[in-house]
């Protein structure tokens, strides 16, 4: 089924909230998913891969001058902080994410951050490929990275990434099974219906024949 980008972003934000992520993190995940979809990537799958296990304790980190490292990087949790770190550093810094569970979500978070800050990022993978992300789009000639990979994330000089961005006005095809999974997570944020809620919660009657 085809969905609008707004629909995708809102559902993924709700799904992340339903999975237990703080609202501000869920906002970033929703934006990342929509950004990926606009690039022709499977943003819904990427986000679900990231949020499926739910949030855990704050991730273990190692820090040296200019470097932040995450061991067993749970991207939905540590991804937003990874970009915070790079964007808060005047000096060239890097973030090392070992054993990343949702590397495509990291690309989406990079895209959303690149758009917001008009800056560029490089994601260098342990198998040798590099993905470059900028405000103008995504340069990812290799297949999407798979879970378990190590990533080094850096800010880079401005690039002219070839934009294969689809027109967002066309709508995006989303796998029905994935969509149903996202809906189920989002539904965890809804309060069950009750007669009392129906009668009191909206402060309105149920028949309007005047």
């Amino acid at each position, binding site marked *: *089924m*085809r*969905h*609008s*980008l*707004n*629909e995708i972003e*809102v559902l993924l934000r709700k799904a992340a909230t339903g999975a237990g*992520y*703080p*609202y*501000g*993190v869920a*906002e*970033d995940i929703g*934006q990342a998913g929509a950004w990926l979809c606009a690039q022709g990537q499977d943003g819904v799958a990427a986000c679900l891969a990231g949020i499926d296990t739910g949030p855990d304790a*704050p991730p273990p*980190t190692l820090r040296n001058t200019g470097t932040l490292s995450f061991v067993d990087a749970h991207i939905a*949790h540590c991804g*937003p*902080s990874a*970009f*915070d*770190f790079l*964007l*808060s*550093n005047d000096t060239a810094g890097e973030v090392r994410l070992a054993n990343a569970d949702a590397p495509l979500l990291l690309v989406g978070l990079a895209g959303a951050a690149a758009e*917001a*800050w008009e800056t560029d990022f490089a994601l260098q993978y342990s198998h040798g490929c590099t993905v470059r992300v900028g405000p103008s789009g995504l340069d990812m000639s290799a297949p999407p990275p798979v879970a378990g990979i190590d990533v080094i994330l850096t800010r880079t000089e401005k690039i002219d990434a070839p934009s294969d961005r689809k027109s*967002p*006005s*066309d*709508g995006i095809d989303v796998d029905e099974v994935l969509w149903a999974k996202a809906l189920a997570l989002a*539904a*965890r*944020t*809804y*309060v*069950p*219906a*009750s007669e*009392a*809620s*129906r009668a*009191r*919660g*909206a*402060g*309105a*009657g*149920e*028949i*309007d*024949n*005047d």
Partner: protein
Amino acid sequence: MIEAPNPDTLPAETALRDPGEVMRLSRMGSFFPTRLSFMRTLIRRLSRETATVTRPVWDIDESGFGRAVYSLTVGGHVYSLVAFSAPLDPERRTDRVIAEAWDTSYVLYDGTPSTAEIDRLEENAPKQEAGRFGASDLVLCRANKSVRVFEHVVDCLARGTQPCSDLINATGYLMRTTAVYGNGKFGIADRARIEQRSGLSGPFAAEMLAVWLVRGFTLDLVEHIARCRAPATFVALDRKFKRHLGIGNATGLGMAPFLVSHPILLNNWMMARETALARVRAVSKTSPEIIESFLHLIARARRHLGQWTVDDGRQSERIATLRGELAELEALATPQWLSEPYPWDRLIEATGRCSLECQELVVALVLEPHGDLVDGLVDCMASDERPRLQPATTAGDLKRLIAEHCGWATSIDFEYRRATKQFWYVSEEKLEPRLGDRYDEPGADLEMPLDIARRVQALRRDLDGLPDEQTVAEFLLSRPEHRYVVRRVQTLAAHPYAEIRDNLIGADCLPIDMLRCKLSFFGASKFDPKSDRWTRITLYQGAPLFDEIGGADADDWWLPVLEGAS
């Protein structure tokens, strides 16, 4: 592309009103439509283009059921309202989101729909939220008849008479919309599709266009049914009634969270309005023509208030007070008084002792004759900018921002139960937003993040003890639950009107205030509260009809009056 204004050529301004004064629920819940309201902006645009509405499809039976299409060109693009009308069991007629059937349903379509596209929409539009839509579908909405007025008008016209003025005025519409969806809902086009298009780039412009076309359809429909019922005796509806019949709207809690979830947009709307006021207040000497226009408008406002009657006790009292206060101001603002220096600033000052409702009515009133000064501000009201986290900010800076901009939040005592009595939530029942009592109803663990003040306080507490030089990036690494509110506090520093400066979960929070604020920006009038959480309003009352676009009075319909009604 809008060019940055040259500061040397901008009109003079007084200081803007303080956000701490403006962004209070009690004041926001007293707003009136202004000439910056989105409906006014759209109609001015249509008038500049002398847009012509055509009706290429009219396949409506004698009972008023079937389909119709209206088309017009705006900014070089053709848009069409595709309308469907069907029988509705009275037992199913409700204004609530939980409704599943409606008298009429509509889609604003991008272009001219083919028959196949109309067929597709006929399959889906009557289902509303349960239907699926595509990228050519810009707006989805529905409307129910005001049964009493609709049948009365049909009956009168069929018998060759005109309807009762008082009934027309008391209700003000033939149908009322109960939801108007845009921006990607249910698969319709993302706003990105139209946001750069001339004519539809403003906030809610597509939605406002759809509603104006719906209003025209309701007028055609009522005449069509009456004509079919008694062709020999039928008379057309008098133009003065047509003009006074807008489109009703029932608005509930669903609209309220929007103001919280779009802080930069809210800031821009408010900033435009406050800047407009500041420009008018800075006028040192006004012209006889503007004085004459103002006197005409204040008299009209007085008559409009006389025709604004509601059942709600609280609003009735406010209207009564307002009538008295406006009469006093009308007596004060003589031509001579207004000819003295800085008349509008003095008039605003004079309202300082009046009710908030009166103060905000006068704000709207003084903007009205100053289109040349303020209309350009509508270009500043849209925004696709998102609140952006500033990770390099230090904890010390963040504390200072909270101290400087969030006193309204940190001063609330959340130990007091009344301060947390309410919670906002989404019901699983058609995802209807609702408000619950935290201490009496289940679901508070799933509340929506509208508790901004409480979150600001929690953030402030957790900043205590941190080294001032620690960055937000480092702080959020271990405390990601504050990401949302840090972003909002930082946004507020650059967008002073971005937050409602009240406790939205307190026992005293009246959602109706949020609704009225937003609806006033749409251009709604005749607020008719039905409880503290939903209201009926009238849209486009007094607005030009299809064949009046481009006419001399196409922009002169602020607070309309029906001649002959009591």
